[in-house]
């Protein structure tokens, strides 16, 4: 099958319309199961008590924040290199979802930090990296917004996404470096005091639920964007004819 098989918007829309309810349904079921396990079945932590349950939202959100940015960067590369017409669309549609997960990771991190460290915000390496990632998302979305010609905006945003993707590991490394210089290792770290197997399952289920939710939302946003473009094209044709 060629790269451009799904480039046909009509074919994509048909396929997306078929997948979207399944992805949505899967997300809902997994979320219910995951939340049940996380909130009811898993025992409270002997050190942190019930606050440990925030982890089941926080950690998958942080994963998704990274995942969405990787997706965005790959879609941008495909758009720039192979000029696949749906790639720009996918990148654009994934950014607000990624920013949403990033924001969720920040908020839950802050909520989790209060009982753990006694402060709403601590400059922990992980939280700081996620905060910077949030800025990268905002910059990406702002650039899309600022350039009027949607084709130009797509290409410029793709260049920015790739520059960001190269920088994310460097930023992550530098923040870790900075953190080890400024913080003694005695502080309880957020990426978990050795995850217990009873906690691992709900965590994975929640992560899958978030992934399915991402797929459903992405397809919905892409279909909406395609419809908007069609409306614009029709209007343009009407005006020039």
């Amino acid at each position, binding site marked *: 099958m060629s790269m451009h098989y799904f480039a046909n918007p009509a074919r994509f829309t048909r396929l997306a319309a078929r997948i979207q309810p399944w992805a949505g349904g899967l997300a809902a079921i997994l979320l219910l199961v995951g939340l049940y396990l996380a909130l009811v079945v898993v025992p409270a932590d002997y050190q942190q008590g019930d606050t440990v349950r925030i982890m089941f939202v926080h950690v998958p959100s942080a994963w998704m924040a990274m995942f969405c940015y990787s997706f965005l960067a790959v879609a941008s590369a495909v758009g720039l290199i192979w000029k696949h017409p749906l790639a720009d669309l996918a990148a654009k549609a994934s950014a607000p979802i990624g920013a949403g997960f990033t924001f969720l990771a920040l908020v839950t991190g802050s909520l989790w930090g209060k009982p753990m460290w006694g402060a709403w915000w601590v400059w922990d390496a992980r939280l700081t990296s996620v905060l910077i990632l949030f800025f990268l998302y905002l910059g990406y979305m702002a650039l899309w917004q600022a350039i009027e010609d949607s084709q130009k905006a797509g290409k410029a945003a793709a*260049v*920015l996404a*790739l520059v960001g993707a190269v920088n994310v590991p460097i930023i992550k490394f*530098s923040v870790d470096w*900075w953190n080890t*210089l400024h913080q003694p290792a005695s502080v309880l770290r957020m990426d978990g005091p050795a995850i217990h197997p009873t906690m691992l399952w709900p965590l994975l289920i929640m992560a899958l639920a978030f992934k399915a939710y991402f797929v459903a939302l992405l397809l919905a946003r892409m279909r909406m964007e395609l419809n908007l473009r069609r409306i614009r094209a029709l209007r343009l044709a009407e005006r020039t004819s």
Partner: protein
Amino acid sequence: MRAFQAIIARDLLLAVRQGGATFLALVFFLLTVTLFPLGIGPEPAILARVAPGVLWVAALLAAMLSLDRLFQADFEDGSLEQLTLSGLPVSLIVLAKIITHWLTTGLPLLLAAPVLAVLLNMNSEGFTALLLTMLIGTPALSLIGAIGAALTLTVRRGGVLLSLLVLPLYIPVLIFGVSAIDAAVHGLNAKPHLLLLAALTMAAIPLCPWAAAAAVKLSLE
């Protein structure tokens, strides 16, 4: 190569003729550093403690605010398209402009930094490290900034957007720059920090002009 030098010579001539820009960056640098003692109090020990960070943050902002003249004026009067038609690869043209930007912004900031370090009562152990980090790190500011400046060329009043795009990318430069000076001030080995900073700049030299060139070409379409 002659054309490459000619572009640098042209931009330097313009910078000298139009003047002001370097002076403004320096004044901004001085003014920002002056705000800190006024904000956090004149206690010499506290100032000495925060001096490396303050100097780097101020230098970073000064460099960022001068990015808009990297391409903007040439874009508006048609010079940028004439430059790309010179037959030189666009990435080299961008590199020439980055070099001029560093000569007219990074270098003056580097020279002014020790004076401001004295104002902040910075420990004298840190001066060599301060100069070295500035020497190695400010080129990275011009290189990375060029991408942001090129991407926002077609955006009206792109200044705020430019800072949103560029500042997150400046964070590693800030971290390695400040940690090197901190290490030197505390009598530790600054070398690993300096090497990381150098690695960052070396990686930026081929990558940034290339990405910025892609953005410049896009703006001319």
